[in-house]
Structures are given as C-alpha cells and as structure tokens.
C-alpha cells in the first residue's frame, strides 16, 4: 500500500502530473471574486469563508478526472485489480494520494487567500480546521465519482453532475464552521457533524468505489 501511495505521489509531483494545478485554480477563483462582487472590504469579509470553501470544492472537483483516468488508460488499473491488495485498499490509497496532492495544499493555502478576502482575524483558525476536516471527505466522495465515470470517453462534465449533489452536506457543514468561526460564534456543533461526515465517508465509500470499479473493469 505504501509503495502504491509513493508511486501515486511521485507521478503527481513530477512533470505532467498536474500537481499544483488545483492550487492555482483555487488562487485564481479567489482572485476573481473581488472583480465580480466589488472590492468593498465589509462585503468581502462576510463572504470570505463561503468563497474559500467553494473555491476549494471546485479545485477538488477539477482534479478528479485525472484521479483514475490515467491509470485506466495505460492499463495499470487492471494490474492493480489483479494484485493481492484488495481493490478497496487501492481506492483508499488513491483517495489519500489525491488528498495529499490536492486537499492538503488547499488547506495550507486557505489562510493566505483569506488575507486577500479580508477574512476576520478569528476566522483563520476555523477555515483551516474546517478545510482540514472536510477535504478528506471531498477526496473520498470524489474517488467514488471518478470510479463511476472512469470508463467513459467524456466523463468530465458528467462527473461534476454526479459528484456535486454528493458534496452538498460536506459543503453546508464545512462552510458553516468557517462562517461561525469568522463571526466569533460557537462552531463546535457543525464541526462535529463535519467530522462525522468525513469519518463515515472514509469508512464506507471505498467499498462502493471498489464495487463500481470492479463493474467498470469487467
């Protein structure tokens, strides 16, 4: 499993792996927001948590179609399916690699972009906490979507249509944590819900992902 994780990380980091594209997209979305709603700092600071969450979610979504498609095309997915490692383990490792290369950089970049959006001072901790708890769920749910659409020629748009509704609960609770935190309100309840969604998704969804991947590899 560790070997597979290292392989995926190396592939993502080296040339053509697309590492950093998600991060750049996150940056560009955040920079575009003041252009579209105007530069008033009061308005920006009130929408900052939501914009950061939406940007992170879109950045995750965009990187999903590369998650399994490359391995599908060159046939290494078939090899992985016949390997002694169960397919559930393979998809879990894939999700973990996606989180390390996409989710984790987003978590770390969010406070910096928060400065651009005039995020209130007490909100910085909460945006990091909420993204750190929420992005694993985004990666795992996204892996399920990628496994569903891996056999399709033009799965990209369909993937968004399938994954977006599944992202709703995570987005609601994640953005709620960030918003309440930024306004200095108690953010513990939505944070527990967010952690619960992440834990449940990590525990159960790999089985669904592996099941649909088996169907697609049939």
């Amino acid at each position, binding site marked *: 499993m560790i070997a597979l994780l290292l392989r995926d990380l190396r592939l993502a980091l080296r040339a053509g792996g697309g590492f950093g594209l998600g991060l750049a997209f996150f940056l560009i979305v955040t920079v575009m927001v003041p252009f579209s709603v105007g530069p008033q700092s009061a308005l920006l600071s009130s929408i900052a948590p939501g914009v950061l969450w939406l940007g992170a979610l879109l950045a995750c979504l965009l990187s999903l179609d590369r998650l399994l498609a490359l391995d599908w095309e060159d046939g290494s997915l078939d090899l992985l399916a016949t390997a002694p490692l169960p397919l559930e383990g393979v998809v879990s490792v894939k999700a973990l690699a996606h989180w390390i290369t996409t989710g984790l950089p987003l978590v770390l970049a969010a406070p910096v972009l928060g400065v651009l959006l005039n995020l209130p001072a007490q909100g910085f901790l909460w945006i990091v906490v909420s993204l750190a708890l929420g992005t694993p769920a985004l990666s795992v749910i996204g892996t*399920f979507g990628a496994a*569903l*659409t891996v056999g399709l020629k033009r799965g990209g748009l369909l993937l968004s249509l*399938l994954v977006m509704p599944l992202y709703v609960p995570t987005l*609601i609770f994640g953005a709620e944590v960030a918003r309440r935190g930024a306004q200095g309100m108690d953010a513990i309840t939505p944070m527990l*819900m967010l952690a619960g969604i992440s834990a449940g998704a990590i525990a159960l969804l790999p089985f669904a992902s592996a099941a649909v991947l088996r169907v697609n590899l049939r």
Partner: protein
Amino acid sequence: MSLWEYANPKKFLATSERVLPAFWALSGLCLVVGLVWGFFFTPDDFRQGSTVKIIYLHVPSALMAINAWLMMLVASLIWLVRRHHVSALAARAAAPVGVAMTLIALVTGAIWGQPMWGTWWAWDPRLTSFLILFLFYLGYIALWAAIDNPDTAADLTSVLCLVGSVFALLSRYAVNFWNQGLHQGASLSLDKEKNVADVFYQPLLVCIAGFVLLFVALVLYRTGTEIRARRMRALIARERAGAA
C-alpha cells in the same frame, strides 16, 4: 405463485398489459374527481383565498417525487441482489417520472409562494432539499444515458442510487441545520390527530390516490417500452450477425 415470477419479462409484459387499462382508467377517474371536487366544490380558505387549491397538485406530486426515488432504491437493490433485468429497467423507467413529479412540486410551490410568501423561491430547508433531490435525479438519468453496455449501466446506476439515497437523506437534515424554514409542517401524517381541515382533506386523499395510480401506470408502461426496446436491439444485433 410468487412475486418473482414477474422477473420473467414475458410474464411481466403479459400481466402488466392486462392490468394497465384498469390503472389508466382508475387514475384518470381519481384525478378528475379529486381535482374537480377540490377546485370547484371546496370553500376558499379564509386567509389564502383560492390559492389554497394548489394543494391538490402540490402535495401529491411532492409525495410521489420522494416515493419514486424510494421505488428506484428498492428496484436497484433487487437488481444488485437477484439480477432481474425487469427490476433494473423499472428503476430506469421510474426516474423521468420522478423528475416530472419533482418539477411539478417545485413549480406549483413557487406559484403558490408568490402571492403567499411574496417570493417565488426561498432557501427554505424543504425547498432546498427538493432542489437537491432534483439534481440527484438528473445525475442518475445522465449516468444511465452515458453508458452503452446495459448491464454495466444498471450496475453503476444502482450503486449510485444507493449512495445517493444516503447523501440525499444527509442533505435533508443538513439543510435543516443550515437555514430556518418558511414552509409549513407536514400537511398529512398518519400519527397526528389533526390534519388539514376535513373539507380539504377528503378531495386531497382522492388526488393522492390518483397520483399514485398514475405513477404505477406510467412506470409499468415505460418498463414495458424499455423491455421492447431492448428486445429490438437484440433482434437487430442478431440480424447483423446473421448477415455478416
């Protein structure tokens, strides 16, 4: 005699064709009686005026929008466990009907909400969860349409339906947490003393019966169409193979 006999497409077609006219007639009758009774022979509400009568379309369609998804869930489970093709095709046939019901509920709700709440749309938990349900339906149908191999498509959409059900339920409670509601509580429930006033209640029950029957009739009919379409494809494929 067991339910599983209808897993045989031939048997399913024969029986459904025999009962379909009865379903069409009964649902038509219920809808005409219920709607005419509701629209013309019930008093106007003392606060809402005649707009209250949109309830006869809104409540039954909202009910069926959720029940259609439940039916798809059961049919998907049957397909995953017992691999009966009729079951998968029934789930496929039910989805567009469910979308139509969801749309009717959303649109009638907006038409009612405009004079009553003063707005076409509010981000109320119930409204929002219906919109999310609508998106789930769209994704499900799009996945069916995108995959060529019918067995693969049935498998993938079934798993999507299961996972989607969990997340749809989760969203339902998440939006409750997210925003306060404008929508009134349930109009009907089995364990409540008092429902909507009797004058509105009785025609509403007739309308609901009409919608349920209409849904069953549409799903049976569409499932029959799907079975025939698949047979046709098999015949064409066989002929091509014979010619070559």
